[in-house]
């Protein structure tokens, strides 16, 4: 199973790095984060030496970056017809889905590794807390992982990359911003809690400041597992057809 996963992963990573997509998405991601952090967060001198401000933009930036990473995954296979070949190969559907997910996750990991330049360069201005930053990166990885599964699932539903991009962005926006409803509508407390529970941003907020709550990590694992499961089921249904 591991060798099959590796094979799919390798194929996916190759497709990311053989096209300009990985480089462009990474470059845009780094620039967007830098613009937001350095130009929209006030004077650096009045900020604490932590990356809280930086990570607070992650949920919003990921709304556009994650779909760009995942839009090709299944949509391109379907457009070019390689999905049928894939489904006839001796791979289980779950292996195909997980292999693609791991490849996208590794690309995301690489993008995040490059953001380490921010605290390293800023350490000339202040002393950063290693533990807090580590906690924040852990949170972003869980959050990003869950977002990727949404993108992969949506990509499996269509053969059009643009539709895949837009639909993923829309779903992510809804999942990120759903808890704003509580600011405008007074729900009964159980409904308000459910609305909060559904919100990706609500669960990311503590992680983004270095407060690791197991329930938030679990939330992203559960969401990720749920969308991967749906992705697998989409493939199974396609196979039956």
């Amino acid at each position: 199973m591991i060798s099959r996963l590796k094979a799919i992963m390798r194929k996916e990573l190759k497709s990311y790095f053989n096209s300009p997509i990985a480089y462009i998405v990474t470059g845009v991601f780094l620039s967007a984060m830098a613009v937001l952090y350095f130009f929209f967060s006030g004077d650096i001198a009045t900020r604490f030496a932590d990356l809280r401000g930086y990570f607070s933009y992650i949920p919003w930036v990921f709304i556009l970056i994650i779909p760009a990473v995942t839009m090709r995954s299944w949509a391109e296979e379907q457009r070019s017809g390689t999905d049928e070949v894939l489904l006839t190969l001796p791979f289980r559907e779950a292996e195909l889905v997980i292999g693609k997910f791991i490849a996208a996750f590794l690309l995301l990991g690489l993008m995040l590794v490059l953001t380490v330049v921010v605290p390293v360069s800023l350490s000339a201005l202040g002393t950063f807390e290693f533990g807090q930053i580590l906690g924040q990166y852990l949170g972003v990885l869980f959050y990003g992982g869950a977002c990727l599964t949404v993108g992969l699932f949506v990509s499996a539903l269509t053969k059009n990359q643009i539709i895949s991009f837009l639909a993923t962005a829309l779903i992510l926006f809804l999942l990120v911003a759903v808890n704003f409803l509580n600011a405008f509508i007074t729900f009964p407390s159980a409904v308000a809690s459910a609305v909060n529970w559904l919100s990706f941003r609500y669960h990311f907020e503590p992680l983004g400041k270095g407060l690791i709550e197991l329930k938030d990590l679990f939330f992203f694992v559960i969401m990720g597992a749920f969308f991967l499961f749906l992705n697998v089921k989409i493939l199974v249904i396609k196979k039956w057809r």
Partner: protein
Amino acid sequence: MHLDKKRKEIITGLLFLGALVFAGLDSCLYSVRIDATSSGMFTISDVSRNLFKDITDQVRITYFFTSKLADTNPVYGQIEDILRAYADSSHGRIKLAVVDPVKENREREVEEYGIRQFPVGRQTSEEDLSLINNASSGILIQYLDRHRVIPRVQSTDTLEYDLSSFIRSLVSNRSKKIGYLVDAPEFDYQTFSNLVTKPLQGYMDFTEIHKDNDVPQTLDALVIFGGTGFTDFDLYPIDQYIMRGGRVIFSADPVKIINQPQIGIFGTSVENAPLFSLLKTYGVTVSPEVILEHPDLALQIGNGFRYNYCFNTYQDFVSKDNPITSRMRPITFFWASPLAISPPSGEKAETLVSTSHLAAAMKEMNGQGFRLDPATASLNYQRLASDHKQSYPLVAALSGIFPSSFKDKQIPTKEGVKKDWAKTEPASTPTRLIVIGDSEIFSPQYVSQVSPGNGGFLINCLDWLTNDEDLLSIRNRAAQDTLMAKIQDPDARKTAVTVIIIINLVALPILVIGIGVLSFLLRRRTKKSER
């Protein structure tokens, strides 16, 4: 066969979804929280957590906060974090609301609760500074029909302590009764009220005690500012208050300061004041000397002058074991006198605060008083320190059974005043005293100007005297140290920030895209050569 496979898929699918729902519910019920910050920024102490057990109805905390303030200082975000930590740890017993009074049209409420509004400058661009009028950062804590207010919060230093002590007093519905007795002619009552009594109202209620009146035994503690003018007749009720278990802070020294423009700063010895005999009975002698501290610790006045008679004392010179001083900010002493501590049997004494090992002490010269002018301070220090320097105790904490200063003596009398005092108690029940060799340490006119830490020190002393030691174990949160302000020089700082922005905004993305272009070209070349 096909149908069987479908059924199997559906069943495993449903089981998987069921497991996810179960795992989700389980994680909500049994979550673990790890605060990744080394300072525990998002964690409140066990003392505060234990408070929640006593809360039967919900405590409502409202943080009235002008949201524009967030751009002026990141500390406001940390204030909100601590408040959230309370709400999150309380299992629903504390409810937090963050309210922008302007946006939510609740400015009137802010005014009614006495939350202070203040103007703040906000940097909108490199050159432009806009003013936020009527900004608020105050906390209202409500429980049943009672409430307490922290009128203005601008730091997280003592926030947890303030919140926990206020919640405790709200829930228990009892405030501490503190008496204060003033023997200082220039005591600024208005400033004292603004700085100490009003902000603590509800947690500690202060009442002025006049020396002609008795000291009510119902007081939880008594603070004596000065006292060198007290006669035995004035001191007797204080001694008997202590003998019946009363707890007292003495802030006194035997050098009376006269600060007049015509003659400069001058000190006269009042070492024969009866107060010092009383303190000696309790085990503390206040020497008729004035401390001169090393210039590094001395207060800076005027054009860079170091005035060695007024100085700060830091963590290095305080007891780390006693809760009063273990969480203390720097405190400032003004013309302090050294203590000699020799507790009688049955009593425990501890030096809470000392000078540095480089301090000197000045004695009165031939009965002519002390010349304490700024111009001669440095010379006097050098002269005395070259002769002898050492660490001098400045604050002592005493606990145990104290002998009465009036034991085996006649009850003092005053002509024309008749008092119905009961018989003299010869020894106290177990109690606590604090002696500070400085009558100006809590003097409002000095505290308000130069030493905000002294007010906190007074509250710590009162908490220790009145037994709230657990609250004192809540540590201070010194957040200011972590600002990104390592480079102070504005030009160097601007250059550093520009370089950092170029690296992150331009160089790094270009490098990534450049690698992409390079690998594309390499691939194309390889393909061409293969063809």
